[in-house]
């Protein structure tokens, strides 16, 4: 039973449905795996072992429910998503003791589908970071090499899925925070179209950019999760009222990419890309061609402006969103409370880490009188140009492909001294959030030099997650399967 963690989500779900294993056995096997790996991995902030086992026992008493697509499947949730009765810290001291009385919409949907919420995953504080080194609580390690970062900000989720602690995790992606850690840890990560998955209960960082999505070991697993969490939520005014197609239908389309026009943006395949990432990604593209895809050269000319645009908008939105943490209604309150202004200032200064303070201050600056037009409005204008680049490119092709990150996972501590240097690593993921379009990172092999996983990204037109999943699964079927990470 201890070997169940080698299974994919769909395999474990089928075993559960057939009654070949019980929900309790599936849960216990994940808990065993957590006990074996967590002391080295530090992927999790809270494990609800007792509650999960009790829930599994109750479910087993009634037996499998074929109407629940995730019946008995243990999943782990990034700690930025509210979970009723379970701590939800956002990796921040300011929310260290926060226990929501409501579930995020996507968590409600997972529970209704029969999933068991096993644990909460570590992350960069308020999702601000690309390495999970900004967590106030612990630094998560990469299961492929414990001296390297798992990526971020959903680094705990990525490491936990790669190490077999669960069968899927929900991450969030504001500027690449699902796709970059998925790439670094050798798993599949999907950033759905903005508005496809409700943001209710996702503690906001950049409201116009944030989107929750699946992080899994296979493309089919990601389709199963997305099918459950996607859909209109009347309580999220940015949730889109477009019918959710059958993502599972998009899978297993005969193993060919005949007729697929695959765009290769020149800006993603040149300077700044490490040799090993370039080689692994190009070999996946060659595979796509051998399966019938046609390569179309495209251009995303404003790519070089994406990082500046993104950080202005994200920091501006963050400074506004994080104003709610004032020590009054929830979260940390300073012991220095002689007057209200001191209570606000001390509670925030004691609770927030340095990167969060830096982003709030930069956001405050770019929104302040005299600078608003020069920074915030300017960035919002460039955002339209960046989105238009994608729409123009997608007129010529069905999907766009490029590396997820210029390098494989970097060493812990390598980029912490210079925040700007860390921001620059987000070059290939960030434009997509500005455009609102969906993207997916697929593991395509190991780098020749570092032996670390490499992810290829696919981008699609608005709401075309089915197209992404279909092509990614065809590629996955023909790519050599990655070995288990050494930690396994």
């Amino acid at each position: 039973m201890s070997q169940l963690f080698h299974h994919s989500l769909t395999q474990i779900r089928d075993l559960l449905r057939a009654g070949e294993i019980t929900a309790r056995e599936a849960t216990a096997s994940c808990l065993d795996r957590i006990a074996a790996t967590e002391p080295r991995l530090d992927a999790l902030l809270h494990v609800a072992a007792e509650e999960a086992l009790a829930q599994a026992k109750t479910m087993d008493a009634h037996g499998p429910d074929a109407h629940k697509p995730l019946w008995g499947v243990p999943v782990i949730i990034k700690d930025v998503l509210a979970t009723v009765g379970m701590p939800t810290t956002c990796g921040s001291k300011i929310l260290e003791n926060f226990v929501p009385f409501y579930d995020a919409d996507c968590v409600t949907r997972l529970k209704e589908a029969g999933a068991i919420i096993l644990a909460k995953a570590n992350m960069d504080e308020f999702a601000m970071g690309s390495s999970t080194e900004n967590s106030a609580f612990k630094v998560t390690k990469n299961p492929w090499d414990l001296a390297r970062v798992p990526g971020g900000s959903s680094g705990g989720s990525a490491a936990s899925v790669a190490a077999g602690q669960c069968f899927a995790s929900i991450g969030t992606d504001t500027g690449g925070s699902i796709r970059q850690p998925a790439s670094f840890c050798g798993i599949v990560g999907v950033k759905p179209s903005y508005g496809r998955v409700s943001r209710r209960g996702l503690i906001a960082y950049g409201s116009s950019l944030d989107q929750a999505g699946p992080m899994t070991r296979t493309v089919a697993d990601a389709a199963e999760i997305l099918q459950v969490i996607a859909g209109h939520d009347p309580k999220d005014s940015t949730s889109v009222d477009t019918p959710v197609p059958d993502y599972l239908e998009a899978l297993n389309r005969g193993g060919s990419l005949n007729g697929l026009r695959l765009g290769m943006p020149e800006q993603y395949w040149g300077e700044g890309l490490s040799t090993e990432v370039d080689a692994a990604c190009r070999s996946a593209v060659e595979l796509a061609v051998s399966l019938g895809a046609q390569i179309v050269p495209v251009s995303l000319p404003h790519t070089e402006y994406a990082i500046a645009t993104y950080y202005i908008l994200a920091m501006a939105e963050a400074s506004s969103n994080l104003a709610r943490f004032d020590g009054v209604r929830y979260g940390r309150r300073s012991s220095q409370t002689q007057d209200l202004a001191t209570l606000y200032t001390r509670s925030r200064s004691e609770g927030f880490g340095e990167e969060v303070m830096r982003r709030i201050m930069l956001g405050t600056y770019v929104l302040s009188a005299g600078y608003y037009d020069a920074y915030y409005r300017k960035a919002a204008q460039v955002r339209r140009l960046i989105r238009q680049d994608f729409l123009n490119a997608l007129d010529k092709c069905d999907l766009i492909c490029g590396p997820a990150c210029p390098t494989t996972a970097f060493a812990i501590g390598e980029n912490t001294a210079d925040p700007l240097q860390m921001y620059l690593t987000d070059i290939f993921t960030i434009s997509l959030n500005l455009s609102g379009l969906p993207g997916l990172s697929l593991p395509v092999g190991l780098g020749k030099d570092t032996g670390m996983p490499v992810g290829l990204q696919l981008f699609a037109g608005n709401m075309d997650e089915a197209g992404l999943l279909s092509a990614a699964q065809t590629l996955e079927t023909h790519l050599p399967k990655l070995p288990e990470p050494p930690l396994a």
Partner: protein
Amino acid sequence: MKISPEKALAIATLARLEVSPELAASLSAQMDDILGYMDKLNELDTASVEPMYTTVEQPGFLREDEVAKEFGRAQILLNAPESDGEYFIVPRIV
């Protein structure tokens, strides 16, 4: 230099943050560096471009305004740092 350490302290005050003079010094240098990088956007002429604040293309979605009680007072006060069971308690204001 756009952001002097004094300017950093002033921004911190606006954001209801308190930073030590040492932190203000390092933050000012980093913010300067980052804002300098952001000036790259000035290379682009955007005079005729409409700003895009959201990518959601649908018009605002409005629900019927119906009264509903989803959460009780006790739940909402559950995470209060200080409460008397009825209200959030803050230091005296007036």
